[in-house]
């Protein structure tokens, strides 16, 4: 506890990254593994759950110190932190606990969580007897579930990398794998041997940077920016940017795993991709995108994919409804060989080789490269992104290795602007078929000179629960009727997405949308914050000049 408290105080006492780094290095250099792994859990893993309530801590501290509860409340107001307040008011102790951190967990924290009230008071008093003021502060934070320390995961990774003399990416890779607070796992994470990594963990993802990343970039034109920064088009490989879930598909002899970019394990949501693993060579890692895929051989909207991720109890019908495909675009490991240092073009060639053998597999595809002769040529193809239901274009330097994180310079994304607008629901109509009892067809309006002008209808995009909620709102807030149409109080705002727009005499707003759909309810916006017709006209103007 004394070592860990020292670390906490050192990290807390400084705002300088270099000093925090030194504190972390000093700590992890000297701490025994059985304690180090708990510190690591506290710094980069999960915070312990609350073992005792604030009210109870306050009461036991009041009994121990003789300070009335009202005065503890005054102190809490002044100090702003209960853990600290209680540490400061308890009778002073000249002892400093040498109890190892792992025993703080096994002998105090876990028992505290399972004890009854009188035993909790005994345990707390026993701990207070042993700890000094600073240790009490840290201890209070641990037991009340409020342990936080101002240090980023990145910095902890750097400290561990420095003391093991390994690349931070390797440490990151090991921390990504599932591990438990055991000395063995700690030794594995800090092993100086590069290859002692968890076979099931994903490699750190390489992330693309948007082109013209800064709004105040002196070059405001995309093409000129590309010419200036990316120079020769033949050095670059272009692909479509898919609107799906970035993922690594890892196949080992005994298991196949799918990890999302948030380093979440998502294998269970996509059993058909797990089955794919068996078709790949052992010890192969693919990087790519999971995309909902229509039978017309084109991507479906991201919302379809998300429904599969969100589904808690697996619904087989839904699986049949929404077919998915893993579009591979990189090969990080093949038959146990780490290929990340190889040039992008090489990895791409090997990837195509493997996938060619699996061409008939409906759940696997290679994200195709786009042939282009010049940046102008690519810009023209990019203009068709919306028709292809992709988000734009990815550019990857052919000679570059697979880096980690947001390293700039070798991967760029050139996205198209999405067509969305925030509109107010003003009319509603009953649906048809199984939704005939509900109001499911909505008309939306935008502001124009202080009045709401209807501009589009939209039917799809909401979940059943959301439809019921909106239906309930419509019934309670109807202001008039006209045949089957209900006029509704203009209170709900929705984000409307669409694929394109054109001028139209038949619409009152003068503009017709292509494939309008509701993307989500903007509960964060009030009706007066919805967009104006002017905004829509500007989009129309841009679409012509694109």
């Amino acid at each position, binding site marked *: 506890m004394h070592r860990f408290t020292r670390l906490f105080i050192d990290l*807390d*006492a*400084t*705002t*300088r990254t270099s000093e925090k780094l030194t504190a972390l290095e000093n700590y992890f250099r000297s701490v025994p593994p059985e304690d180090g792994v708990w510190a690591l859990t506290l710094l980069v893993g999960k915070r312990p759950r609350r073992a005792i309530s604030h009210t109870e801590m306050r009461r036991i501290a009041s009994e121990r*110190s003789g*300070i*009335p509860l*009202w*005065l503890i409340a*005054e*102190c809490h107001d*002044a*100090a*702003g*932190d209960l853990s*600290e*307040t209680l540490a*400061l*008011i308890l009778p*002073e102790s000249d002892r400093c606990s040498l109890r190892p951190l792992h025993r703080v967990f096994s002998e105090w924290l876990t028992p505290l969580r399972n004890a009854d009230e009188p035993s909790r008071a005994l345990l707390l008093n026993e701990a207070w007897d042993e700890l000094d003021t600073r240790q009490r502060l840290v201890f209070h934070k641990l037991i009340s579930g409020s342990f936080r320390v101002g240090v980023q995961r990145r910095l902890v990774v750097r400290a561990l990398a420095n003391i093991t003399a390994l690349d931070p990416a390797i440490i990151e890779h090991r921390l990504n794998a599932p591990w438990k607070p055991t000395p063995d796992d700690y030794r594995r994470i800090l092993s100086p041997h590069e290859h002692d990594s968890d076979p099931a963990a994903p490699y750190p993802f390489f992330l693309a940077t948007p082109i013209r990343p800064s709004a105040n970039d002196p070059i405001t034109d995309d093409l000129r920016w590309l010419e200036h920064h990316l120079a020769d088009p033949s050095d670059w490989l272009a692909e479509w940017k898919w609107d799906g879930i970035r993922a690594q598909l890892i196949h080992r002899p005994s298991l196949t795993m799918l990890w999302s970019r948030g380093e979440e394990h998502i294998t269970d949501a996509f059993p058909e991709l797990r089955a794919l693993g068996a078709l790949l060579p052992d010890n192969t890692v693919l990087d790519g995108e999971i995309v909902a895929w229509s039978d017309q051989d084109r991507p479906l909207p991201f919302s379809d994919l998300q429904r599969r991720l969100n589904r808690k109890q697996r619904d087989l019908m839904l699986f049949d409804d929404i077919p998915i495909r893993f579009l591979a675009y990189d090969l990080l490991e093949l038959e146990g060989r780490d290929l990340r240092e190889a040039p992008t073009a090489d990895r791409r060639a090997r990837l195509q080789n493997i996938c060619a053998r699996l061409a008939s597999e409906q759940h696997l595809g290679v994200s195709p490269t786009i042939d282009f002769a010049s940046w102008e040529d690519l810009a023209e193809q990019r203009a068709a992104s919306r028709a292809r239901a992709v988000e734009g274009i990815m550019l990857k330097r052919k000679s570059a290795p697979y880096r980690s994180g947001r390293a700039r310079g070798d991967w760029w994304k050139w996205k198209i602007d999405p067509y969305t607008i925030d509109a107010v629901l003003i009319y509603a109509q009953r649906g048809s078929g199984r939704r005939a009892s509900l109001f499911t067809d909505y008309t939306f309006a935008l502001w124009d000179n202080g009045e709401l002008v209807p501009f589009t209808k939209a039917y799809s995009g909401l979940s059943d629960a959301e439809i019921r909620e909106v239906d309930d709102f419509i019934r309670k807030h109807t202001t008039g009727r006209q045949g089957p149409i209900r006029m509704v109080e203009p209170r709900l705002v929705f984000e409307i997405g669409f694929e394109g727009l054109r001028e139209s005499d038949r619409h009152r707003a003068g503009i017709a949308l292509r494939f309008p759909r509701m993307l989500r309810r903007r509960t964060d916006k009030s009706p007066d914050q919805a967009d104006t017709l002017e905004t829509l006209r500007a989009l129309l103007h841009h679409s012509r000049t694109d």
Partner: protein
Amino acid sequence: MTADLVVSTDRGLYCPLADIHIDPWRAVDRAIITHAHADHARPGSKTYLCTPESEPILRIRLGKDINIQTLPYNQPLLHNDIRIMLHPAGHVLGSAQVLLEPLGPHARTHRSCCISGDYKTTPDPTCTPFEPVRCEHFITESTFGLPIYRWPDPRIVFDDINAWWHNNQTRSLTSIIYTYALGKAQRLLAGLDPAIGPILVHGAIDRLLPPYRDAGVQLPPTERATADNAKASRGRAMVIAPPSAAGSPWLKKFGKHSDAFASGWMQIRGTRRRRSIDRGFVLSDHADWPGLLSAIEATGASRIGITHGVVTPLARYLREEKSLDAYPISTRFEGEVDDTPETDPATD
């Protein structure tokens, strides 16, 4: 029935029988000044009474030509059948508690009263230590009147400060500590280890050093910070400056530095963070919670006025837990002196 000898007025604490104000915040005829901090010593009064140690400081702060009468510690002064005595408060050089005792006809009708001014019970080599004073009515400050304030041993704090200074040198950083110009700055100087490196002081502090040195207080050699000596001692020097210097262009001459704040408020992590300084050292010239309680108990007083600080909670605590007749006195100057803006003009 006995009455209070000292009452609270819109000019501050007042003894009607003697017609004397204690630390008045407006101009009066006769003022007793407990110490020269800006929230206790205000300009404009006709005559001032203070300790001989306070006199030169008071002249620096309120003007050379003010009318001052001095009274050494523990010597009586009679005025209108009231006996006035000054007792050491241990706060800063010359700081005093003011004991007023009714004599003659007043002895039966009025309570003796001691006004603490600011005080601390922890050791400080730059001023005479606090002495408890027996009285019936005690008016105490309460700047740190909550149980969360409990000071560490100052020797440990000075060890930390010297270690920090030394450590900064190994990284070629100048050390800068912000602290109150009167009292804390000198106490800090007395605790520094001059073997570590040169010590520079801000002008506002420099001009308050002669009264201390003249009174025989041992302080290490210092230099008033100038562009030249600052440049010459970059990465090595310890600089003592008032809080108002933080973030000012005055700092530029010291090059790369690490900064710290020395104050009782540094006891709380949140206050330390809000100051956005590298380090906070817990060093206060005020009594902490145990200091307040022990000082109050040592007076034997049953009536306790609480002023300057956390008045309401301390009054309630004394009433409910110690069965004392405790009551809050509102003051115009709230908050601890460390946090009030430095009133001395920055002369550098």
